[in-house]
């Protein structure tokens, strides 16, 4: 099975997020970017498919952040065969524009599966896998937690809720939105990443950002109200532990 994995860097959700002066976006000057965690699962699933039944893995990365090259080299070190970096400064595009770019980058390539994360923390207008599939007129399954290669088809497990899943036989080519790989994404030694940096399997394609057509505009952003409901416990861990036990006992437990 030949897989293409779409990778997007997103602002690191663990960092303190600050807003720009006019309150319309994050202050991106100081933001660190990390690979969208679900994309990491998509990559893992693609590598597992290759290990189980052969084929290849190509990764396409969107954006210019320094982190992008690191992300692509890491993917190569983990087992991707080829990595392609798509253009400059594209990370703030809407998902519908991102889908446009990926679709044009895929032109002339043959593939059985397109995998990407089920969603990204910064997207407003839907999920990439389904958008790419709809543009290419190929089937899609979102919220996938495992895939198995077949002949001309792929068997995928889609998760509903409460732990209920359903298995689907899907004609290929198909696009999958990966929620979780069958196993946690692997770690890779720094030495292998360094090797990948020297390996020359990374190429770059220049893309012009397409006209923005999502039709959705952010007017203002704010840090979500926290502490609105929570009464904050002051003091050190000892004081906190005491108070927490008091609350629990007060609830009759």
């Amino acid at each position, binding site marked *: 099975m030949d897989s293409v994995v779409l990778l997007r860097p997103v602002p690191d959700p663990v960092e303190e997020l600050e807003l720009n002066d006019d309150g319309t976006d994050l202050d991106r000057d100081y933001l660190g970017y990390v690979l969208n965690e679900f994309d990491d699962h998509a990559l893992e699933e693609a590598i597992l498919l290759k290990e189980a039944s052969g084929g290849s893995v190509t990764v396409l990365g969107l954006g210019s952040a320094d982190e992008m090259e690191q992300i692509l080299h890491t993917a190569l070190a983990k087992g991707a065969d080829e990595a392609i970096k798509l253009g400059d400064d594209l990370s703030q595009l809407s998902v519908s524009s991102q889908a446009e770019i990926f679709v044009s980058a895929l032109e002339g390539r043959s593939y059985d599966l397109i995998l990407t994360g089920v969603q990204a923390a910064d997207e407003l207008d839907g999920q990439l896998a389904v958008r790419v599939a709809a543009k290419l007129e190929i089937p899609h399954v979102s919220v996938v937690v495992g895939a198995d290669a077949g002949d001309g088809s792929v068997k995928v497990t889609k998760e509903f809720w409460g732990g209920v899943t359903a*298995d689907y036989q899907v004609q290929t080519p198909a696009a999958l939105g990966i929620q979780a790989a069958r196993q*946690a994404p692997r770690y890779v030694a720094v030495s292998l990443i360094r090797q990948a940096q020297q390996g020359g399997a990374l190429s770059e394609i220049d893309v012009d950002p397409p006209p923005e057509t999502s039709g959705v505009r952010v007017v203002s*952003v704010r840090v979500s109200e926290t*502490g609105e409901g929570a009464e904050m416990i002051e003091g050190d861990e000892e004081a906190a532990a005491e108070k927490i036990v008091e609350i629990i006992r007060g609830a009759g437990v």
Partner: protein
Amino acid sequence: MSDVFVVTEHLQGQLTETSFELVAQARTIAAQIGGQVVAGLVGSGVTGLAAELGGADRIVVVDDPAFENFSPDGHAAVFGSLIEDSAVVLVPYTSMGMDVASAMSTTSGIPLVSFCASISVDSGLGATCQLYAGKIEADVEVDGDRAIFAVLSGSASAEDGRSGAAAEVTRVPNPVGSELRSTCLGLVEPEGGDVDITSEDVLVVVGRGIESEDNIAEAQEVADLLGGAVAGSRPIIDQGWLAKDRQVGKSGLTVKPKIYLTLGVSGAPEHVEGMKDAETIIAVNTDPQAPIFGVAHYGWVGDIFDLLPELVDKLESD
């Protein structure tokens, strides 16, 4: 073209809570923009479910054996063909809705707004969305006079969407045929484990902040001292550190214990969905911005590894 269309969903013969929430929300929107509330119902042998959707003015049903099970692109295509007269389309932001909403938007060109916590229609179409795992709220506006909103669960009261009234039911033939590109091989129910977290009074809930599988033992100790159980957020389950039936949230279980103590859980909307109705929520997190403090009743900003030994001490001497 001012109808408000609701994509309803059902699993194992039952309409989901979110479907009723969206009907309730659609009523509010329809009252503001005029037009009817139209509920779409797609499946096999589902016409009977229409009786529960009296909160809508009209129900459009596609009842066809081809839709015995949810078909990601099949349902997307069917719903896409039903929304032509609608100004506003509400889709649940669930596993099924995620396949339907983006596909409908791409094919029709109608803008999609995802992660909606609330929708506003007073001056053009807009919504408030939760981004960055709930850390950031964004107000967005839509160009033009049509939009698809993928709505987080809990955005309206499901009770308000239930009604015994009889809506007009229109049956429409299957517009996409029976040749679906994905075939459902069947639903798989989760295996029951040793502990049923939905019936525990006390849950000690570990998130990614717990850092390693070994550290869960400390949380377990606290749970044991309290006569409760350990549960986890999704990454903990995906890592294989806890069994699937210990997951709380959108794709896990919904719990309402007396005490819900979170350790290093950020409070992403998908997690909050499964625990917001717990009686007393206590959150511990090093990040004062963590959205979990917005739903918790009590919070402490600090390190769980500092707290846990103290907590064990206090409980042991209690």
